[in-house]
């Protein structure tokens, strides 16, 4: 436990604070970091700075969306369904109600699913099946059925898809989304076959760098132990060749995307695959996302915003159900969909409240030499 306790004329202002973390500096070489890890409590924290639904895309659409992008958004479907207009209740409110309470009815308009053999994601079931993708690096058996649903929708495509852009931007702006991971029992950031990973929600603003655009490593986050208590989750994992891989858990990942409207993704068999460095952790959060929690996440985005990317929510719901590929209900309908989120994190010191702690940190990053 690292105490910030300092005496100043009888004032012990922060004796109650127990802080864990690993100092990082981009100037330190890897071998120095490994030595430091062993000396410094075997603990390192990272905080989320960016989240994007993983979409493999090619510039000309030929490989991923040979039929083009979806064109039936709320405006287009409304125009087609109500060419003569009608009462507000029977037209506008009817469509908006369908957004909030979608049905299992088949889609009324053509929906373009992503095609092609390549997708970003992980092999969630350990198998290589006929519907699986190949990763960009050539790994077989990638499960990411969600990519079929979202891949050909302009909302999700870089660089200017509205949902991709703003949902990510709000990661930095909303403390609700401030998810951190803390790795304990770490002997090496390159290879360690036994690592504990804990998810917390932080409660402090992110530390921005000199440009004001990027998040700098080295900030400190206090844990939200009140509203964030239910988000504290434990995973077990291992590090091989600098990549952390965790075992799956049924996980919760908060991701509010619209002006503090809370949304929490329920991800079954959630696991992390992160390339680690002393200052960053980048990779994937993958698992089977509960269809209803995903749809709730999506529809917290307002209809007019969805219209920019031509994404009609009730049509999307049909596609989502159709592509879902795991956890069938009693009727055999799938309730979860394999998916992947690309995540970027930077190193952060995670401050534990008094009375709890992670591994002890005996010295500061630049003090151990």
């Amino acid at each position, binding site marked *: 436990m690292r105490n910030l306790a300092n005496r100043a004329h009888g004032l012990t202002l922060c004796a109650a604070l127990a802080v864990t973390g690993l100092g*990082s500096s981009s100037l330190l070489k890897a071998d120095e970091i490994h030595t430091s890890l062993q000396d410094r409590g075997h603990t390192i924290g990272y905080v989320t700075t960016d989240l994007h639904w993983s979409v493999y895309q090619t510039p000309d659409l030929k490989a991923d969306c040979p039929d083009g992008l979806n064109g039936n958004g709320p405006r287009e479907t409304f125009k087609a369904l109500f060419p003569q207009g009608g009462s507000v209740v029977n037209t506008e409110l009817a469509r908006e109600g369908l957004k909030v309470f979608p049905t299992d009815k088949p889609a009324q308009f053509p929906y373009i699913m992503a095609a092609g053999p390549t997708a970003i994601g992980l092999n969630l079931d350990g198998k290589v099946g006929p519907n699986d993708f190949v990763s960009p690096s050539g790994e077989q058996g990638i499960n990411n059925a969600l990519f079929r649903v979202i891949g050909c929708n302009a909302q999700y495509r870089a660089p200017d898809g509205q949902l991709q852009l703003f949902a990510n931007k709000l990661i930095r702006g909303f403390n609700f989304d401030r998810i951190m991971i803390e790795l304990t029992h770490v002997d090496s950031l390159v290879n360690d076959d036994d690592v504990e990973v804990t998810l917390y929600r932080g409660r402090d603003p992110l530390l921005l760098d000199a440009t004001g655009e990027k998040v700098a490593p080295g900030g400190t986050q206090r844990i939200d132990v009140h509203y964030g208590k239910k988000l504290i989750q434990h995973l077990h994992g291992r590090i091989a060749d600098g990549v952390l891989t965790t075992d799956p858990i049924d996980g919760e990942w908060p991701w509010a995307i619209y002006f503090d409207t809370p949304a929490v993704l329920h991800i079954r068999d959630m696991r992390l695959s992160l390339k680690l460095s002393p200052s960053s952790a980048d990779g994937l959060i993958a698992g089977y996302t509960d269809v209803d929690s995903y749809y709730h996440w999506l529809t917290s985005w307002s209809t007019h915003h969805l219209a920019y990317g031509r994404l009609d929510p009730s049509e999307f719901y049909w596609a989502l159900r159709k592509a879902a590929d795991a956890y069938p209900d009693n009727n055999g309908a799938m309730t979860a969909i394999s998916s992947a989120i690309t995540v970027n994190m930077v190193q952060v010191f995670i401050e534990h409240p008094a009375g709890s702690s992670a591994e002890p940190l005996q010295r500061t990053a630049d003090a151990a030499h």
Partner: protein
Amino acid sequence: MSRGTQVQTVREWFRARSTGLVGGAFWAGVAGTVTLGIAGCTHLLSDHHPAAAAATTQDLGPAEAGTRARVRLLTSEQYTNVIHDVFGSDIEPGNPIPPLSRTDGLLELTSASVGVTAGQMMQLQRSASAVATQVMDNGNLDKQLPAHRDYLVPCKPKKADAPDDACAAKFLKSTGRLLFRRPLSGAQLDDLVGKAHHASAQLKDFYAGLSSVLEGMLVDPMVLMIVDQTEPDPAYPGRRRLDAFSVASRLSFFLWNSAPDAEVLKAAESGAINTPAGRARVVDMMLASPRLENGIRAFFDDMFAFDDFDTLAKDAMVYPNVSGTTLKDAREQTLRTVYDHLITRNRDYRDLFTTRNTFISPPLAALYAVPSVPGWVPYEFPPDSPRVGILSQVSFLAVHSHPGRSSATRRGKALRELLLCQVVPSPPPNVDFSIVEDPKANFHTARERLTAHRSNPVCAGCHRITDPIGLALENFDGAGQYRLTERGAAIDASGSLDGKNFNDPPGLAHALHDHPALPTCLVKRMYAYGSGGPLSDADKPELTWLDKRFAATGYRVPDLLRAIALSPAFSEVAEIPAVPAPPAKTASLTAPRPAAQ
């Protein structure tokens, strides 16, 4: 311009002020520069107050010592502090006084020899107008702005659209006493009340009329300048001393960096401030005041040349973690450390350079690679940390570096000049950098580059006295972040300071701690700062006494402040032999007059 001419110029200035139009319009006639360097002349300005009681000064320092009487322009910080102390911190005066240049290691010492240009006077006029308007404003509920007049004017006029001499007099008497740092004479008050009456009647608004008079007061030279007025010293016939109000101002700007408050002025009015016992009570009260923090921070900000932070920038590509907030916090960290160590804890000044106690904020914590919490919190670096003393804080390391790399030379030079009061010669204009700039040389570390640079005998002389110090801080990059290597090569942080060798930053810190010039330099700087001007040979006896006193009290800064403030030299006027001053152009407010005899 001869000294007599200078005196005459100031007299003209004062006369023009007293006959000028309400609202400071008199400034409009000034078209040039008025030189304020009039040391030794101010005894001619007033001779008002009776002598205070004579006292024994045997244990307070050399009785024969004295300092020059000066006229000093308020610094920008002092002007702001005065406005805030008199009217409240929500009255915003702007920044009408430009930064000073540095004399003998301190900005403050230049304030007795600066000029005020016509352009600066316009800025002062604008500021005065803005302050007066804010003080008299009626608030705005929609903008949640308070009606300052309701509590800054201590009475209500009988009619808001007409003059009220009694109410105007009440405000002008109390405010004038604080702004002029002495009570207004009956004639002065009558004059101001008459102007307020005239303006209120013309403008059909009591507060607008009062505002115009306040504006005029705020550009009055006696408000904008600290004028040492002298009187015969009854204890030493033939000698002069500062009058009680000048002592109050000198004490206050020394200890608080602001004007005296009502209590200090009361001690001046009673004459107690000119007796040893009375002044001791005042000084102890001032040392116990929260305003002392302003004074201490101002002094060390000046001594450490932290004004360099105002223009400091780091290359964001090289140091992405360093933002403007980081640099602001770096300055703040050291000033907090200084005040906490020297005043709150009352520790040995020399230990400031070896202490591991400091304060930390989140942006700084990222540079130190340590955890933090929101806001400022005390922090203690561990015993095996290379961070020892304020030399290893980001402030010193970053401000004495290049935008994209460290600088052993700048750091060594700063240490010698700022902390040891030594002078490092400036580099010659034709420095040959070809060796270090040769791309084929492939130097990895600063030590390699500087070793090559010192092979040039023209450069070697100065670099030998700076580099062995600065190289010991090479474990900290240009942003103050700790590092073990530079371009893949291990950093050798060994060095020496005037015969004392060390191997790392803590070694340098301890060598500096034990350097005999460290405390004597502080004494020099603080005494010069307190007396308001550069030192001369005549100050040596006083400095020698203060050095011994400082050592005897364990190098405690509050004791040093007290010793300076209570010493006879602080208020006795040193007689300076008349020497013809070099000619200078001055503004002519009226027709040229012959030099005073």
